[in-house]
């Protein structure tokens, strides 16, 4: 953005479009709910459906039991059921026995099955595992452990957490009888004498039991009570991650679904060869300028609040004027007087010359997107023909010659490249010359295509400058065999194909035998050459198009002609610093052209920036000067470059020479 004044009025109204601010949040809630449900379901799967209602999962010894084993629905506490399997283990301590008889102390008070039932398991293979509610941890046995229990047996030693004791006892109080049981070094109580005193134990399997208890004590000493938290963190994190992943996936799929929904309806293109003109109902026309702004060729103008077709010759016949009219006052009506173009088959092959295809504006249609479609179709048809001609066609140097690098030619070239045909594109001027000649900032391509029809080069609502730039990038990236500045002189039928003769940039001749030819030459025609002597040395300085005015800064140039193209060239050159511009015109004054150009050039001439010479007939173009007769007097205009803009030869001459039928009256722009 520079400090230049704001641009002029647009040619097309902007359509409201939802920005990403609005579309970003769509589907978030649904995706989040889906992900959350997925995570929740994973949780249920992991822990079992019953675990949702449980205060915690069951650990190793009871893990296989179902809820019904302990909870039988009766009013009795589940803790009373321990006795049915384990037997009634009374306490060795009188105080505890008293409490048990009162019902204040039960199995579950110290052994909390759901919340923290812990223990040490000695497996048959010598593994030592510390287990608790929801976790298991294999311990490394300390080296100075007492005698191992019998390796052939599996032993479980239950542990009780200190927290169970400290509910009633105070660990800090020295006078408390349980103070020495609850030491700070372990989360577990290390006494193991609640149900059976050590002395009593000697009666039954003494060595095994004591050894087991000793080892369990060692394990318990170093164990942290929050082992469970660490162990379950991994699986929890996995559940959360899985839930979020599902949410993300749902969102991405939703986005893709939304993008695939399309809205616009593509208007049906007219059959090739017909010609239509706009007819405006003055009674209903609002004078809103929509059709004027939409016309790429400036054929319409608003006079006294009503639109009028000012230049019917410039009308292309099927443009966006009708679709831009807000109330249907403008309708395109078939002009019966116009003749049809060359007769073409469905696949755009000319009936007079098989193997010769036409695509784009030359078929009589218009609209860039139709040209693109036709280019693709013609390339496919040409490929079919090449395949059909087969071995005989291999003798030719090329499979396909494409004449013209406008939308149709480029689309055909890209398709041909994709199909693997040996092809070349010959363009007399620059890439997309006709689109380049649209007025500045003209909008190209109005309605979007259906998304399943992916045309290369189709871009959408875009200004012509941007369109041409993007196409240039595409052509460079695809390394299309494009020859600019090549004027095709003849396309003559030959054995198994066509003999194409052309003159490349710099006068280099070009000849090739091709199996098929696509003529995508548009309707603008070829620049007309001057009827003046041209020195060979002057040829590099002679130009028919002005592509980059900046490269002529500081030079003296002569422009021959006074039409719109000549005036625009002169204006562009005069805007460069240090240029000396002389305009040689055959007429006596300004005869035609856009008012803006005439006013601009007249103002520059009045200021002395540009020299306007009327009644000048160019006689000779030399390497350093142009000689012309001005009102009968011969004069020489020294210059470093010459631009000739004296009109265009319509393209039907090439068509006629190629042997096609009498073409339509080609519109002159």
């Amino acid at each position, binding site marked *: 953005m520079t400090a230049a004044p704001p641009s002029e*009025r647009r040619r*097309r*109204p902007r359509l*409201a479009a939802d920005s990403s601010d609005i579309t970003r949040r769509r589907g978030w809630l649904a995706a989040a709910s889906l992900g959350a449900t997925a995570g929740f379901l994973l949780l249920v799967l992991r822990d079992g459906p019953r675990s949702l209602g449980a205060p915690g999962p069951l650990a190793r010894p009871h893990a296989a039991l179902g809820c019904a084993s302990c909870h039988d629905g009766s009013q009795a506490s589940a803790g009373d059921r321990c006795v049915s399997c384990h037997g009634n283990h009374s306490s060795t301590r009188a105080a505890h026995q008293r409490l048990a008889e009162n019902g204040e102390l039960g199995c579950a008070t110290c052994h909390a099955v759901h919340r923290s039932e812990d223990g040490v398991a000695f497996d048959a293979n010598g593994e030592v595992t510390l287990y608790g509610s*929801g976790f298991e941890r294999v311990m490394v046995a300390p080296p100075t452990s007492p005698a191992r229990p019998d390796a052939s047996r599996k032993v479980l030693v239950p542990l009780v957490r200190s*927290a169970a004791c400290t509910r009633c006892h105070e660990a800090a109080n020295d006078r408390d009888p349980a103070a020495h049981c609850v030491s700070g070094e372990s989360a577990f109580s290390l006494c193991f004498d609640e149900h059976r005193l050590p002395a009593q134990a000697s009666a039954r399997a003494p060595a095994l039991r004591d050894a087991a208890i000793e080892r369990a004590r060692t394990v318990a000493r170093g164990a942290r009570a929050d082992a*469970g938290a660490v162990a379950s963190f991994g699986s929890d994190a996995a559940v959360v991650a899985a839930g979020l992943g599902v949410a993300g996936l749902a969102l991405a799929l939703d986005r893709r679904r939304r993008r695939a929904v399309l809205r616009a309806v593509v208007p049906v293109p007219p059959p090739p060869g017909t010609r239509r003109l706009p007819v405006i109902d003055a009674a*209903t026309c609002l004078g809103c300028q929509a059709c004027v702004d939409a016309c790429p060729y400036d054929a319409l103008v608003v006079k006294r609040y009503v639109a009028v077709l000012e230049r019917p010759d410039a009308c292309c016949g099927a443009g966006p004027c009708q679709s831009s009219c807000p109330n249907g006052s403008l309708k395109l009506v078939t002009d019966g007087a116009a003749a049809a173009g060359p007769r073409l088959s469905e696949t755009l092959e000319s009936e007079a010359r098989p193997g010769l295809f036409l695509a784009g504006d030359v078929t009589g249609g218009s609209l860039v997107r139709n040209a693109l479609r036709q280019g693709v179709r013609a390339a496919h048809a040409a490929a079919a023909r090449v395949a059909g001609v087969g071995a005989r066609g291999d003798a030719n140097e090329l499979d396909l010659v494409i004449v013209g690098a406008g939308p149709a030619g480029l689309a055909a070239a890209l398709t041909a490249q994709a199909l693997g045909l040996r092809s070349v594109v010959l363009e007399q001027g620059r890439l997309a010359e006709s689109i380049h000649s649209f007025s500045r900032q003209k909008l190209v391509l109005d309605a979007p295509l259906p998304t399943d029809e992916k045309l290369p080069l189709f871009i959408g609502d875009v200004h012509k400058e941007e369109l041409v730039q993007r196409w240039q990038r595409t052509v460079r990236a695809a390394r299309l065999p494009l020859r600019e500045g090549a004027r095709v002189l003849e396309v003559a039928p030959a054995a198994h194909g066509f003999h194409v003769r052309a003159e490349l940039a710099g006068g280099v001749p070009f000849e090739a035998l091709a199996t098929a030819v696509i003529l995508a030459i548009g309707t603008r025609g070829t620049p007309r050459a001057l009827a003046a002597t041209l020195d060979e040395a002057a040829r590099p300085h002679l130009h028919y198009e002005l592509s980059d005015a900046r490269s002529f800064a500081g030079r003296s140039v002569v422009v021959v002609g006074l039409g719109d193209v000549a005036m625009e060239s002169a204006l562009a050159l005069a805007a460069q610093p240090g240029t000396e511009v002389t305009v040689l015109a055959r007429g006596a004054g300004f005869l035609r052209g856009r008012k803006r150009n005439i006013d601009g050039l007249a103002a520059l001439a009045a200021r002395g920036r540009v020299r306007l010479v009327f009644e000048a007939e160019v006689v000779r173009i030399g390497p350093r000067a142009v000689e012309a007769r001005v009102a009968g007097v011969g004069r020489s205009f020294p210059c470093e470059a010459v631009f000739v803009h004296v009109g265009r030869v319509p393209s039907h001459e090439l068509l006629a020479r190629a042997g096609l039928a009498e073409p339509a009256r080609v519109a002159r722009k």
Partner: protein
Amino acid sequence: MAEHPFASPLLSGLDAQGRAALRAAARPRQLADGAAAFAPGDPADTLWFVVEGSILLETPRGSREIGESGHFGSEALARGASRAARALSRGESSLFEVPVAALERILAHAGRAALLVREGDLARRRAYVAELFATPFGQALGERPLEALVARLREESWSRGQRLFEAAEPAERALIVVSGLVKVVSSGDKAGFFARGDLVGLEATRAARSYDATATALGDAVVLALPRAVLRELSLRHPEAVARAERSVRARLEKQARVEELYAGRATRHAVHELERLSSARSLLAIELDACVRCGECARACAETHGTPRLTRRGEKVVLRVVDGGGLAARALLLAEACQHCRDPACLPECPTGAITRDASGAVALDEALCTGCGACAKACPWDAIRLAPRAPGGAGASELVAHKCDLCRGRSGPECVSACPTGAIFRADPARDLVEVRSLVGALERANPKPDAPRGPARRSQALRWLFCAALVPPLLALSRSASDATDALHALATGVVAGVLALALLSHGVLKRLPRLRARLSGRTGERGKRGLARFVSAHALLGVSAAAVVLAHAGHHATHGVASLLSLVFWLLAASGGLGALSYRLVPRRLTRLERRGTLPEDHALEREELEQRLYGRLSEQERTVKELARTVLLPYVSALLGPVWLVLSGRTPAAEEAALACRIERLLGGRSSARLAGSDALVRAAVAFRVLAARRLLERALALWPPLHLALSVLFALLLAAHVVGVSR
């Protein structure tokens, strides 16, 4: 309208179609005795016709009575004029008003355009006199001489971007600016802005030289041409008027120069570039970029309310000083794409059916029933504020497309975008009153909006107090949690659990609560007071609740949660708290950094295009350079561009793009050992392009930081809700 007198000389002779069009465009009005149709100074866009009763037009010069089938208000025929008289109703009267543009079209269709031409000419002259009379030049001249002068001069109508005269052109006329803004750039690139009542090109015309500057119309402008002879006469007869005009212009130009100097060093655009937009706006929608968290809630609320979005967060970024409460503050503002209700709207005269009208306060409204979807208004608006969209089914009007633009949410309790902003960054301001630069550059010539329709300045929020409160709340709660780290006490667990649950429910219902005011307003259809701060309050409440909930949960669950639902629940909660905390932190820290890196307001979907353009610029320019520069690029610039952590460094260093360019240039200098930089001409542009790459990547990084955590937070909170339900059910068994 049942009765419709086409007896008025203007309207008789309209055929049925013309009458139908007139009926559609006309707005009927009933006035009681003594009520005013309009007052002096009101914007004038419509012509009034009297159906019944009579109207008294009061001007300082005298009064005139308009009877039945008469018409008045023809100053509207001059575009941009304001009412010159007060129109009072004598007795009960029934009137209708028609937008002038529509009337002209209807008459032209009927072939009777000539009727308005003379009246239009007179009206225009009178309007020019009225406008000029309010300026120093007009005041010094006096009314009669001014009228005589205006009658002799030729008017020139220029549209935006056109050059009134160019430097080195022979000076044949001086110009008196009547309306619009003219920018004059002299050879030293010094720009001056000329508005109503200023004389342009005086010296050159007087001395019969050529102009020494180029004058461009920044908007649609109307000027009167003063040929040399008339200028000489004027200088002879009224030298003091000319001198006075020159003096005021000089004073203003000096002020402008001073303002420009003040901001010369800034990297971002200054008000001078956007002066035309700022001076023509009556209610400018601006977003304060240091507070904006790029969430897009404003655009979303607008789209939800109206069906199509009327606001887009794209536009120019300008640093302006805003009048805010008692003081001034320099803020980086984004001028969003939304209707700014211009003083002289470009869209209004373009509408062929008169669907665009203005009310007395100056707000520009669009009637969808009259809109035909032709798009002329959208094409005329210089700032893309009007867009076309498919018509909603069931409304009045027949066209497929209809024009949409911001209408200040009339009929609602305030602009939805303003109340939807979580940080209070978006606001509407009147530049002539609230923006210091506009006042000083264009001066008191622009009348401030007499009836303010937006709160002054952006909403201010005091963050510090809030965070202090949070910080003060946390220690006692943490102390509570430490006292029960084992959490086996059932009562303690229950108490903290209940509190945590309640807080969690409050947090979860944030999504519902924040929509409550809007829902309430919609249900009751109130049009209450405007400009509530809305969402911002809920967001800060949510943050506060979050901090307290975290402390309570710490007390409840302690450091260990058992396996199963509880542990998952606590994990999800801590993830929520972390994401929320990080989000709050990013909302606080990121916008400022981001603003410093941005050149203009862009949306994430523009980044791809920008990147393509940058690539084109860098590689295109690179290919033109000579070998040494290419080597330099290969060793320094391209690695700089593709460094993965480069954007992170840029963000952390806090440099602006200009500073970063300087740093990179320094690095290159050091590398080259201080060799002459003359050989490396062109490397400046490359350095700039390379830095632009990194800046773009840094911007994307920061925008992602702002935008990624909300969906995460939302997903986790839904999971949290489910798990909380399961936990509560399980525990209560």
